[in-house]
Every structure is written in structure tokens, then in C-alpha cells.
């Protein structure tokens, strides 16, 4: 098991964001957490990254508890995140953004990763010396994903990669995620667009007000009546 979350509880002041959730991610899977606004999806990812401290519960990665590991140390353990809202460094060039992604690695590894990322995203290569802030939303999302891949993670965390993108671009981004997974990387995907998420995931968990209410394989979930009603607009 690559990642195991057990009874994780998080609160912001008096507000309970997560009420003891448990889930696992196996090596090589795409697992998705779906749910409405405020269900606690992003909080879960932030807690795994160490940006938010859990109130209770454990997060173990490769059989080691990582609850108390600082956010900047998480990345060198092999977890990399594509944060919500992309958060690219707008006043740095595309190349500089990607180099930042490989901050914990040496020059040669960086060069190698850079080649891989440019191969996957030829559009980023075209815009190598352009400032990231001048890219379109879709390109920025590609840059954010490329930047996360630069550290060669074993586990890639994606927070709402479809946010603010046109449907065509959403499909493009999701097919890229599938490709990344096929190349052997484990993916944990948080998404409001349940339809898209379920179409590429192997397993899914449905979050509602800080609790997991349903879980199973993605195909099961996509067929489930309640899920269809609540998240797929039927």
C-alpha cells in the first residue's frame, strides 16, 4: 500500500472539515475523491502535503507515518502536488517554473526530467522563455502538472485540475493524467467534475461534509443511483 489514511480529522478553528475519514491508495492506481464544495476534498490533500495539521488520525506513506513531516520535506519523499488554482510562479518563465519543481534534485536529474516534461507537453517547450503569468488557463494547468512531475514523484496529488477550464481542455488534461498514470505513477485526484474523474479512475471515494459516504470501483460509482443523482446531474 502506497498511501493509507486512517481516521483523519481536521478542523479549522471551530469548524470540523474532516470527521475521521479513512482511505487507501495502492501503487499504480488512480484514486479519486469526489464531492461537492466544502466536502473536505482539498483539505484532505492539504493535510497529506503537511500544509494543514490533522487533529486526529494518521497518514502513512510507504508504511511510514508522515503526519508531522513539514510540507517542504514531503516532496523529497516522493509526493508531489498540483495545487488547487494551479499556483504557478507568474513572474517566472516556464522554464524557471519547471526548474523550481526539481528544486530538491541535482542538475543532471533536472535536465532529464525537463526533457520528459517537454516531451509530454510540447506546448510548454514552445513557450519555454515566456512568463508563466501570460499563459492561458489550460497552459498554466499543464505547467502546474509539469512542475509537479519534475520531482519524479511516486504519488501525484491533483487538486481540481479541471477548475476554470473549457470542456475541451478538461478532456485534454484528463487524457494527460491517464497517460501519466500509464507510465507508472500513482495518482490521487480530487475533483468536482465527478463525471470526468470517474471515467479515468480505478477506485473512488465520495465525500460529504467531511465524511466518506460511499466507496468502490469507479465503474460501480458511476452506475450508483445516488451518485448519479447527486453528482452527475440526473
Amino acid at each position: 500500500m502506497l498511501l493509507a489514511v486512517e481516521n483523519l480529522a481536521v478542523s479549522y478553528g471551530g469548524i470540523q472539515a474532516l470527521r475521521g475519514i479513512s482511505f487507501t491508495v495502492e501503487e499504480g492506481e488512480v484514486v479519486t475523491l469526489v464531492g461537492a464544495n466544502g466536502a473536505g476534498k482539498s483539505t484532505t490533500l492539504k493535510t497529506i502535503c503537511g500544509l494543514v495539521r490533522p487533529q486526529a488520525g494518521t497518514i502513512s506513506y510507504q508504511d511510514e507515518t508522515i503526519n508531522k513531516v513539514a510540507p517542504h520535506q514531503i516532496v523529497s519523499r516522493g509526493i508531489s502536488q498540483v495545487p488547487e488554482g494551479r499556483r504557478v510562479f507568474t513572474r517566472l518563465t516556464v522554464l524557471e517554473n519547471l526548474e523550481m519543481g526539481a528544486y530538491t534534485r541535482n542538475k543532471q536529474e533536472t535536465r532529464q526530467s525537463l526533457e520528459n516534461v517537454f516531451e509530454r507537453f510540447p506546448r510548454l517547450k514552445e513557450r519555454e522563455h515566456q512568463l508563466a503569468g501570460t499563459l492561458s488557463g489550460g497552459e498554466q494547468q499543464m505547467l502546474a502538472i509539469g512542475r509537479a512531475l519534475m520531482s519524479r514523484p511516486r504519488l501525484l496529488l491533483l487538486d481540481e485540475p479541471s477548475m476554470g477550464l473549457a470542456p475541451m481542455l478538461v478532456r485534454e488534461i484528463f487524457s494527460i493524467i491517464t497517460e501519466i498514470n500509464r507510465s507508472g505513477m500513482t495518482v490521487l485526484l480530487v475533483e468536482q467534475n465527478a463525471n470526468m474523474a470517474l471515467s479515468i479512475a480505478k477506485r473512488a471515494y465520495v465525500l460529504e461534509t467531511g465524511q466518506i459516504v460511499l466507496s468502490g470501483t469507479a465503474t460501480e460509482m458511476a452506475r450508483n443511483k445516488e451518485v448519479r443523482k447527486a453528482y452527475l446531474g440526473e
Partner: protein
Amino acid sequence: MEAIISLLTNPYYIQVVTMMGIFLIAALGLHLITGVTGQFSFGHAAFLSIGAYCSALMSIHLHTPFILNMLAGGLMAALWGVILGFPSLRLTGDYLGITTLGFGEIVRVVFINMKITGGAGGLAGIPRETNILLVYIVVALSIWGIYRIQNSRFGRALVAIREDEIAAESMGINPLLYKIKGFALGTFFAGVSGALFAHLMQYLNPADFGFARSFEILNYVVLGGLGSIPGAILGTAVLSLAPEFLRFVKEYRMMIYGALMVLMMIFRPYGLLGGVDFVQLYKRLKSRRKAGPTLPGNMP
């Protein structure tokens, strides 16, 4: 010809240009803190005063060579930068600004009340060691040093923190540690600048290092253009020379100076050379020629 020579040897002009160089060193330090790392500091003058008093007292009491005293002044300022940085760099934006402002006032009041600094009467009898040549050698070294820092792996991390602290943290950068290092480096330059100031004026008074001085240096950096070394140089040159050139309008001097700043902020909100980095500009121009049209050079 004679007029030019007399202009160049006019002690008043030499003094003005020397002073500009001294404040340029401090401005470069603040450029590193505010322009590169994006942390607001309203107490830069306090670090100047720490460097000034430290080096002056060493010159008076220990008679050690000036270069050593100057470096000691810089290191002492950096030490206090770290001491202040630890608790306050956890704060961001306005809160950090207020903390540094408070620190600046504390330092000033402490110097007024200390015996060894001569208190409110000031500290006199500092040997004159600073000359225009030395100042501009230090200026050149500072520009080179800051340029190297800014374009190093370390500097890139500072810029990443300025752009997005959370994203930087996700890249494996420890923001607090890097902010403290950046702050210490910036305050080191302030300390060196203060040491040169002390050994030019030969007299120090805590009143010279109030918050007005801090804001003056901040103005140099902001008006020149945050994040740009040429900007910091231009800002310092324009703003430190303007009051001298505006002397002919007498009492309207500060009013025009103020109006200039307001107009600047309206028409060039990112400063005269905001975001301009000549080396980067050159690189981008080169790649643009290869890759066809890309982006406007302006700030996003």
C-alpha cells in the same frame, strides 16, 4: 573644461554623490528583502544604525582597521536581522511591516539611552575613513554580489517565495529558513552602508535613523521598481539627487518631491524599472527572435 573640473572637485557635489552611493548599498540590501523575497521591512534604518554604531565604536575604542570594522558592522546588523527574523518572518505582509517598524523604533530608543553611544547627544570623534572611491568599490561589489545571489539557486528560491509561498513550500523549499537567510543578507548590506555613513559623517545621532529614513530607502527601491537591480540604482539616484536639485525652489522642495512620487505611482505603478532584468530581457529577446512573437515585456 575648467567648469567641469571645478564641478567634479566641488566638495559639496562629492559629498552628495558619496552619500548616494552609501544609500545605494542599503537600498540594494532592501531590494533583496522586499524586491526579491517580497517581505516588507519598514525598519531598514535600524540595521543601518546597528552597523554604524558597531563599526564606529570599534574604530574609537579598539582602533581596528576600518575594513574590518565595516564588515563587523555588517555582520552585527545581519545577526540582529536573524534575531528579528525568527519571530517576525512567520508573519506576512502588513504584520511583518508593523513588526519591523516597531523594531526600528526600539533600536533608535535603545541607542538614545545607552551610555556608550553617547545617548541623545550623539557619538562624535569617529575617524574619517570613507571616501568616494571606497564607497563606489563597495557599491560595485554589492551590485555584483546581489546579482550573483539573485541568480543563484538560492535566489530562485527567494523569488519563488515572493511569487507564492505555499507553492514554493510544495517544491521543497523551507520558506522560514530562506526568508531568514534573505533577511540576514539584506541587513548585512544595511550594516555595511551604516558603517560607511558613520565614517563619512564622523558623528552619529540616533535621530538620523528614524522611521523616516527607513521609508526613504524603501521609496528608493519601490520607485525604482521592485525586484530590479537597475531599478534600485535608478530609484536611489533619482530620489537622493532630486532634493538637492530641487533646492532652487526652496520651501516647495518637499512638495514637488511628494508630487513626483504620487505621479510616479499613478503612471508607473511597478516603479521606473519594475520587473526589468536586463540579462533576462536580453535572453528573452534572443529566444523571441527564434520562436516568433511571444509576450509583451510588461508586468502581468
